[in-house]
């Protein structure tokens, strides 16, 4: 089934890298991009993505704060925060916000693991 994925990162190159990993796994999935929190929120309201893959360290609102707000808006969206900053406090905050934490640079393996885990969670909860 075709899914909709929103990629949020202030770096265009980083968004391209995430899309590349995603397209290698699911060439038919639809992708949308946003470079900041405001655009991300507008996109979520307009397109209701199934997944959001977002950077942590962004100017303005950081990825974890944004993840918490988006999950509050719609708790069915699966969010992953992507960062090279894997300090235990950062990983814990991402998880407390209801998001998965994926290391940057993003690998296809890590992304596939995220999709698999969320599918299992959805099956378990019947969503």
């Amino acid at each position, binding site marked *: 089934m075709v899914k909709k994925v929103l990629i949020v990162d202030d770096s265009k190159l980083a968004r391209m890298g995430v899309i590349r990993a995603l397209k290698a796994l699911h060439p038919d999935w639809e992708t949308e991009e946003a470079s900041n929190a405001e655009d991300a929120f507008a996109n979520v309201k307009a397109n209701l993505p199934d997944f959001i893959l977002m950077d942590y*360290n962004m100017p303005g609102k950081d990825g974890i704060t944004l993840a918490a707000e988006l999950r509050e808006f719609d708790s069915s969206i699966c969010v992953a925060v992507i960062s090279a900053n894997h300090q235990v406090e950062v990983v814990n905050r991402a998880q407390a916000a209801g998001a998965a934490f994926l290391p940057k640079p993003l690998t296809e393996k890590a992304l596939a693991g995220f999709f698999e885990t969320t599918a299992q969670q959805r099956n378990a909860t019947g969503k």
Partner: protein
Amino acid sequence: MDAPSIGLTELELDALTELVNLGVSNAAFSLREMVKEEVILSVPKVSLVSCDEAISILGEQATRRLVAVQQNFDGAINGRALLIFPEVNSLELVRAVVGGAPSLEDIAELEQEALAETGNVLLNGCLGTIANILNRTLKISLPEVIYGESGDFFKEPPPRSASDRVLFVYINFALRGGDLKGYIAMLLDIPSLRTLQQLLKELIENIAGQTSISKTHVD
């Protein structure tokens, strides 16, 4: 004003910022292990400026006395990297790295070592990440701590000339609730800047290769 001898495109600067961001993020993890508490980092701002502009930016600090940790690197690109911050901040940094409540004597004794180690972690994080992602090896010298005013840090090689450029990175990191505003400056000679630009082009082509024609909405 001198015409820049080399300029980076928007996407090349984006790629370089992302590399530096990856580097300092990795370094933050290592610093966290040193100070045993979270290190909060701002998004690095990267720009390519002349030596004179770099000196001027550093001169805007509230205090004129600065401390820098410098390391030379050579390989595919050659140059000098410096972590620079106001000298008044260095004691806070030393306290954070040493831990506990060290005496003033201990701080004085350990200052050079703590500064060198912090600089080593941050600069190696940046240089090592850039080298790894660009698939190149860089030989990085041992860190050296130097004190002075902004102009003092740009006297050594690579030599200043009308066309020289400095990769200037502004970062803000917080330890123990206190802000430490610092800069990372990378001085590259012109051939190294050209090599770096070529490597950035290759990186962009490599990443963009399969996605540039995909159906994406770009804001």
